[in-house]
């Protein structure tokens, strides 16, 4: 858009707009027809598989969690293995408020979960984001482990290892109650939250702010050189990413009606990282593809053949790392470039 504001006059601006690169740049953030597909599929799933709505809800929450990680990892290039810290913070915020009978209204609870996670993300981001590489990786892991230990030790409030069961969650809008046997409300509620969050993230990454994040990821020195407030941008991005992870965690606590220490586990953080890299990071829809592939395989294969599932997953990850470089969507983009119309979309 800065192209249109160039000082060389309207004619020159129009001439530049005619340039294919300029047009690509401007059109890039426009919604495309295939972007409706995941949502159509999600609604179709609701009617087609009413028996699998609990699985569907888990899937939607995982997509949201992976999407929040994509913002930090895929766009800003913050390599973290501790993102479950924020998932857990959101989950425990919702859980503690509901369990102790302080606040049970679901939507405002989610906002509070986002706030708590954002506060933790901001505070830790201020300190941690000065480091990079292995040090940053370790600091994120240790922060998460510390929160988990804290949740474990505050046994009187958090239930410790056993967690908080049977959370009372008020109906959505005071009308649609969460039924533990039928997940219809949970599914649609999670879908709505995911849609709103996705539109927010999508707007954010195509905004000038999002562009500067990509710049920091691609060339840190140059962004310093052009005078971008790098640390500040990273901290803000980390905070937003933490808030979204907190929403995912809060959603998880509400739809399952329980919280336990697994919300803060390294397993969870590593799994969401795998899901995101599997799908393709830094491309918004990688979170969707990765979560669907991973959870579907886990849900239907792991229950029957746990060892074979682990072997197959291992082989899949190794092959993707060796040959694909950016997950399943990376393969898609490569095939599209090679055999399609010569230009990548995604």
């Amino acid at each position, binding site marked *: 858009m800065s192209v249109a504001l160039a000082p060389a006059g309207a004619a020159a601006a129009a001439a530049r707009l005619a340039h294919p690169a300029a047009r690509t740049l401007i059109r890039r953030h426009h919604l495309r027809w295939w972007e409706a597909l995941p949502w159509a599929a999600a609604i179709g799933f609701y009617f087609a598989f009413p028996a699998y709505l609990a699985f569907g809800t888990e899937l939607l929450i995982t997509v949201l969690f992976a999407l929040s990680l994509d913002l930090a*990892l895929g766009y800003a290039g913050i*390599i973290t293995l501790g993102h479950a810290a924020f998932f857990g913070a959101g989950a425990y915020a919702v859980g503690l408020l509901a369990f102790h009978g302080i606040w049970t209204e679901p939507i405002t609870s989610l906002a509070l979960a986002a706030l708590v996670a954002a506060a933790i993300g901001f505070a830790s981001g201020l*300190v941690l984001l*000065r*480091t990079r*590489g*292995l*040090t940053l*990786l*370790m*600091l994120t*892991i*240790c*922060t998460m*482990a*510390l929160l*988990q*230990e*804290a949740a*474990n*030790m505050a046994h009187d409030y958090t239930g410790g290892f056993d967690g908080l069961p049977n959370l009372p969650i008020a109906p959505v809008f005071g009308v649609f109650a969460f039924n533990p046997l039928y997940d219809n409300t949970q599914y649609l509620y999670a879908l709505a939250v995911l849609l709103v969050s996705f539109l927010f993230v999508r707007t954010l990454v195509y905004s000038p702010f999002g562009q500067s994040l990509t710049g920091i990821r691609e060339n840190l020195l140059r962004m310093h050189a052009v005078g971008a407030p790098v640390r500040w941008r990273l901290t803000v991005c980390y905070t937003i990413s933490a808030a979204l992870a907190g929403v995912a965690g809060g959603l998880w606590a509400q739809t399952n009606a329980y919280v336990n220490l697994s919300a803060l*586990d*390294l*397993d969870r953080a*590593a*799994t969401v*990282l*795998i899901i995101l*890299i*599997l799908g393709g*990071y830094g491309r918004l829809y990688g979170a969707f593809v990765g979560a669907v592939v991973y959870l579907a395989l*886990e849900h239907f294969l*792991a229950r029957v053949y*746990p*060892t*074979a*599932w*682990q*072997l197959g*997953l*291992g*082989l*899949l*990850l*190794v092959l*993707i*790392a*060796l040959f694909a*470089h950016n997950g399943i969507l990376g393969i898609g983009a490569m095939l599209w470039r090679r055999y399609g119309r010569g230009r990548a979309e995604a």
Partner: protein
Amino acid sequence: MFATHSPFAVGWGAGSLVIENIDFAGILLGGLSAGTVLFIVSVGLSITMGLMGFVNLAHGAFAMFGGYVIVLAMNRAHVGFAAALALGFLAAAALGAVLERLLYRRLYRAGELDQVLFTIGLIFIFIAATVIVVGPESQLLTLPQSLRGQLDLGFTHYRTYSVFLIVVGFLIVAGIWLAIERTRIGAQIRATVDNRRMAESLGINVDRLFTITFAFGSGMAAIGGGLGAEFLGLDPQYALKYLVYFLIVVSVGGLGSVVGVYCAALLLGVLDFVLKLYVPKGGTMFIYVLTILLLLWRPQGLFGRKET
């Protein structure tokens, strides 16, 4: 799928270790021997990460593989302890060399994320392969008669095996230090860490150096896996269960610094022992707090060099 229990819940006191004399010297020795095990497993990781800049999360898998070779050789083939350790070293080193040549090499220039994905995938393959070939149960190490019992140290009595571990660890760190500082290949390693391009243009075969270092690191991990089987146990989930501990030691010690890893491992081992004893509630918490503070104070690790 990841392990059902995280390393935080288990910790490393889960082996058969029983603390008998709870005096200061005893605590110190226990912590030192635990730290020594951690050092032997992690030292290869530190060297390869410092040299090649590769995030090898699967390092613990080589320790597990070697540990299995050692324990199974002793329990099923009745090989002696020393011979089994040598066998484990050779097997893990050979496996490391093959994997480095075939797979790892392709990813040296890839991003950290691809390396993370690749090595986590490798861990899963190791876990599944171990379950299929050996079985899901954990393996027990039977110590030779000469290493059992107590040893009179003059000022205190302590388990012979722990003292043996501490001595072995010291010999290993001294040996590696001498090898890096005083031998030709050590000089080549230092040159490559300093400036890979310059080293290559001086005629150092960097590819060969990488393979040798990687194989050696894997072999050391195997020794650590075998020697530490008593503390850490040995089961298919090993590589995931202790991953965080290995990474903490390497990052606190400083990438590529052998002495740094040794000090960090001993420090964490002793602190873990002391805190678990005196503050059983939340003993692991201090390790994380300490790691965070140390890394914030010195992001490159205690003995790591500042990035230029």
